[in-house]
């Protein structure tokens, strides 16, 4: 049997605008936290997997491996990928193959250094043909919402309910972020604020429906099962992971009302984990917009297609800290999600893993769910690259 990759420690910075900090400082901060927590030294690392999307253009940096090597004085193999999840999946493959027993996975992004051009960069990255036709990073989310409403025949009063449900998503995520010391926006917002922003934008979604641009870094130490047991009393295992891809040009996809890549990735991740969906209590979704959170609940199979907005609406009218699905409690985006925790692209997935890791170990402080029952058993993370062009799903769990 293959060894199971295990996370022994995690570290991250606060997300937000780090005006005065170099990118090197951010990753250093995240890495130090993880290494101190794991009680390891630099020389213990056999390889590094780093992720960022825009560092060379936002910060005019050279090869990222170079500055990480300077930072750590290490000359081990290092690879750079885009999303944290892609870095983590390379790391998992290497650990499972028995090639390494301890590696560093780190993600970093400093988007605010290019605040005036970052939307063009994002758009060209996620969908060039749509960019050429005039698309913005926001427009595809709004078109998906239009298409969702049309496909599921949402009319009349239900339209208002759905719009309210999406506003609740944002309000709920801000509420969660208030308990997260690392979150970009640790403040409460109201449904009225969300709705007002939409009216002012004259669009289906407004300012409060979208994740911000952020700076930040996150890291974790990934080890083999044997190594993890030496280092930690309660390592968190990557029980299953998978990813899937979809067309780059969003309008060209057969179904523009959801993300096929997420759906496939979840199905395969569950299969490799041998875990049933109903055993999962905490979920970190990739909510670049409130629509993405709604649609992803369906793609991961927690809600039926075309029904997630009802679940959200019913759960949030008198919000108890979770979505109630068929009498079951599902804790979603406890760190505040991308919306309120922040979305420094290359580091985002790291913060998602960070949250599930803390929750499963019962170390999420004020955010801890199921504390009376001694922490949840399984958690799940969905990260995407582009506008659903890639979907990564990780199923995490203790021993």
């Amino acid at each position: 049997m293959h060894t199971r990759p295990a996370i022994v420690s995690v570290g991250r910075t606060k997300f937000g605008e780090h005006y005065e900090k170099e990118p090197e400082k951010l990753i250093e901060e995240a890495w130090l936290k993880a290494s101190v927590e794991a009680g390891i030294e630099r020389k213990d690392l056999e390889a590094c997997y780093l992720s960022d999307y825009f560092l060379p253009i936002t910060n005019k940096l050279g090869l990222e491996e170079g500055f990480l090597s300077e930072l750590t004085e290490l000359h081990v193999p290092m690879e750079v990928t885009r999303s944290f999840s892609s870095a983590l999946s390379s790391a998992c493959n290497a650990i499972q193959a028995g090639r390494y027993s301890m590696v560093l996975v780190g993600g970093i992004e400093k988007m605010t250094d290019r605040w005036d051009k970052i939307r063009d960069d994002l758009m060209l990255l996620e969908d060039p043909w749509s960019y050429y036709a005039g698309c913005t990073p926001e427009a595809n989310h709004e078109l998906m919402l239009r298409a969702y409403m049309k496909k599921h025949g949402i009319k009349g009063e239900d339209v208002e309910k759905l719009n309210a449900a999406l506003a609740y998503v944002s309000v709920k995520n801000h509420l969660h972020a208030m308990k997260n010391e690392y979150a970009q926006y640790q403040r409460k917002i109201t449904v009225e604020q969300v709705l007002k922003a939409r009216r002012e934008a004259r669009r289906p979604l407004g300012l409060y429906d979208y994740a911000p641009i952020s700076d930040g870094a996150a890291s974790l130490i990934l080890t083999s099962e044997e190594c993890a047991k030496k280092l930690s009393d309660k390592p968190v295992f990557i029980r299953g992971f998978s990813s899937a891809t979809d067309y780059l040009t969003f309008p060209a996809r057969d179904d523009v009302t959801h993300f096929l890549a997420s759906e496939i990735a979840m199905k395969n991740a569950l299969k490799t984990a041998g875990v049933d969906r109903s055993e999962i209590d905490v979920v970190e979704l990739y909510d670049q917009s409130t629509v993405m959170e709604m649609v992803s609940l369906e793609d991961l199979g927690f809600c039926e297609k075309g029904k997630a907005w009802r679940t959200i609406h019913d759960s949030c009218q008198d919000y108890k800290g979770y979505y109630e699905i068929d009498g079951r409690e599902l804790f979603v985006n406890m760190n505040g999600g991308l919306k309120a925790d922040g979305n420094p692209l290359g580091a985002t997935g790291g913060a998602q893993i960070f949250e599930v890791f803390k929750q499963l170990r019962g170390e999420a402080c004020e955010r801890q769910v199921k504390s009376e029952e001694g922490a949840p058993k399984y958690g799940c993370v969905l990260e995407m690259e582009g506008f659903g062009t890639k979907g990564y799903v990780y199923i995490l769990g203790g021993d």
Partner: protein
Amino acid sequence: MSSEPIERRVSYLGDRLMGRRCGICGKEYFEIKDYCGTCGRKSYGKMADIDLFYDKGTLEYCTLVNEPTNKFTKLGNFIYGIVSFHNGKIRVPGRLTDQMALLDKELDFSSLEDREVVPRFRRRYSVETCDVVPTISLAFTFADEYYPFQRYETVKPGKEYDNPGIVGYGAYTSRFRIKEEHIERSVPFIDEDSITAAVEAGKMALIHAAVDSSLVGKVYVGSESNPYAVKPIASKVAQVLKLGEEDEDVQGVDAVDTEFACKAATSMFKDAASLVSYPKSNIEYAMVIGADNSQAAPRDCAGGELDLFVGYGGCAFIFGKKDVIAEIEGWYSCTSDTPDFWRRDGEPYPMHGGRFTGDPAYFKHVRKAANKLMERLNLQVSDVNYFVAHQPNVQFPMRIAKELGFKEEQYLPSLQVAKFGNTYSGSSPIGLAAVLDIAKPEERILIVSYGSGAGSDAYSFVVTSQILEKRKRQKLTLKYQAENPFLEYVDYTTYRRLKNGM
């Protein structure tokens, strides 16, 4: 975009909206795919070209873009969405163009969705003035508004004429107008320029003529407002309209830009006609386009007097010997080196040489060319049904027409300047198109152009019976464009902004 090869590839697909259809399963792609994604290797060689350029689509979903990405900021707000063709078999991203008033109103996206749209050839976004001008046809307008959907179907020619002549034509002006006193002038939308007008006019000429674009062996584009000092408009026209036989990604056509102020296009009528008549040329059809986003300095600056008259538009004619709608009977051209109007290289706006304007320039040359041609063809004023002159303003063509002895019924039908403004190279051609819109078989048309600098071309055309049959393919007539209920009027400030473009 700083990389020209990327620009070339993007516009190759995006200008023409090309795709492929799998011959096995019928799946369609907005891409030149050699294999079908579903059928795989066995579909090799079975992928058929599809062309959405002349097609109409449906705006499936839309939203407002009011915080565009950087390159689109000059466009202001616009509706953006997903457009589907062939009942949803193929979907593309698209921007609605030609909309201003709509965006000021309360927006109800569901009232825009599911409406039919037609692709328009436009500038893609703004770039630095030193860059290649990016274009795209992922810009759409509603099919039931200003710009109608017209199918492009080739018809096998029936009759070969002794003399060459016009086989088809198309005139294009924009949806926007500025109205001052008694004159209305067409104003380009912000993503339009002389290149886009030339392509749109050429597109409609092909539709009207119903000739196979691969048989067009030469294209001339006359303009004095080419966004480039060096680089032809004609190459874009040839590529987008697929003129001449396509071999790999090269068009087997000779394309050239011509320049002689406002007679840059009319000058080439005789060249096109001669070319299609020369048996060894192997060229069946030749296209001549005159298109201008007529330039003028702002009103309070030197040269600003032009700002009262300039318009925007293009007109294209296809010359050939088969299924001719108007045979060329004869021509006469004259030239003198008279500096009445010029624009030095690098200067944004042209200037008038005050003492030369009028009598020693326009009137002298137009009079000479008209008289000489009528003399040569032994024509009396009464033998001519329609007189078309270059139209820099309303007074000049009326004065010369009267002086030559023409009556109102002979010259008024061609007088379009009060509806569209002076479209420079497109001016007398639009006058000719307006006459062709209404002319009956056997009628004679005398057209005399004028180009500053200076010279005139006079042509005599005799209309054939084929004009009636072809007229059903001419939806965008000059009357339709002038009296369209969907015209949008703009104020002076907006007019200057739109005219300066992206």
